[in-house]
């Protein structure tokens, strides 16, 4: 299914674990340095209300005066677990894209504020880079370096899967529980 900007609470609350979603609109990259910066009281360089934050350290180069994205796969999200939920609440971040899923704290905030976790396909650097159709800005690049900077990516049908929704559902918890049960059957 297609999810188009603006990313309102209503649209996000309608999503359920397992939904295969293609995102069209603006997303902001942000990883460790950015989350830590916000957590420590830094001012957001962009309006985060109803935004999607992408855990990604892209490879972006300038070609003919224009930014071109060479690789844009997700990075591991769990490192932001202490910060993510509170930042979603404080700034109105509506959704997160990453890989590997996040923990119970973020899940609880997703329920509370109406947020979701989108899982991108780890390692699919080329497919994902191609879905970034324009780079509309970059912030905090001097401070954090290019991979940790906040890039404004205009994406078109960016493929993700909802693995944590705003109703307390987590595909990660479900798969873990089921695979543990399968494991017990094999070894007990």
């Amino acid at each position, binding site marked *: 299914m297609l999810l188009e900007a603006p990313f309102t609470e209503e649209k996000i609350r309608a999503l359920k674990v397992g939904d295969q979603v293609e995102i069209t609109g603006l997303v902001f990259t942000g990883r460790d340095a950015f989350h830590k910066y916000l957590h420590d009281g830094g001012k957001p360089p962009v309006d985060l209300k109803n935004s999607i934050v992408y855990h990604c350290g892209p490879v972006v180069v300038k070609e003919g005066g224009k930014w071109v994205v060479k690789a844009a796969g997700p990075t591991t999200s769990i490192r932001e677990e202490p910060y993510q939920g509170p930042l979603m609440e404080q700034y109105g971040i509506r959704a997160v894209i990453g890989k590997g899923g996040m923990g119970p704290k973020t899940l609880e905030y997703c329920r509370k504020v109406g947020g979701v976790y989108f899982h991108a396909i780890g390692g699919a650097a080329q497919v994902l880079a191609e879905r970034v159709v324009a780079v509309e800005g970059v912030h905090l690049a001097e401070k954090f370096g290019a991979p940790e900077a906040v890039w404004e990516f205009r994406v078109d049908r960016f493929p993700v899967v909802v693995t944590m929704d705003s109703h307390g559902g987590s595909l990660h918890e479900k798969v873990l529980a089921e695979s543990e049960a*399968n*494991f017990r059957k094999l070894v007990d």
Partner: protein
Amino acid sequence: MEAKVLQKHLLELIRRTSAELPSDVVESVDRGWRREKKDSTGKYALKVIRDNIVMAKDKSQPLCQDTGTIICYADLPAWCDERTFRKAYEWAVVKATKVGYLRQNSVDSITGVNSGTNLGPGNPGYHFHPAQGKSLKVRMMLKGGGSENMSVQYALPHNGLGAGRDLEGVRRVLLDAVLQAQGKGCGPGILGVCIGGDRGTGYAAAKEELFRLLTDENEDPRLRKLEKRIMKEANGLEIGPMGFGGKTTILGAKIGHRNRVPASFFVTVAYMCWAFRRNGFVLSEGGRISRWLYDS
């Protein structure tokens, strides 16, 4: 042979390894994709992965932005000494980094500073052996950090898992390794395994198992049986591609062994991600590549 010729071949080896998956891996991903249920998230993940494999090859760009740790084995004949090889190899790595076949992936562990060239203490890694014949044989692997974080070493007996010092114990810890990894190592994964050895040689040998073809069969009938069983049972855990659930949890289990001291019994698992990048060539003294070790 001129140094330039070896440099050029090594650069092409890096490019191929980074951008093109060998056909045994591609076919295995395809089989997994066909097996997954229609409209499932697991099938969707494999579809994106398949598209990515095709696109990386077409564009001659890295399959994954994490081009990983460079692992290289060279069997050196009399006409190529270690110094000559190392110089050409390092040149090729620096060049490949400049043109984007490799990401800047070598970070000083004390200062956190990235060398920017992929050179530094221990980087790029290599293992040299004397060649049997007159040709130079080079094998290369790029191992991503996310998958390496899921690699693990068990000391048997392991009480929690009820794993003793026998093949049944090995089976238990291997299934546990897959369970613990869930989707975090960018599965479907491949297990390179070493039974025995010490803590150091165990990891080296486990990684070397990953050079085997996914389609080959272990020469040791006991290990052949174990590999088949692990494939079936690990996939039966239903962790699925990316940990989304489904039947394709691993694409292969390759198990080797080393002797051990009586006091220790290690089982080492090198977890590899779907971006299973490896290749190599055989080069004659005249500077001609007689064969690529994996077709892509």
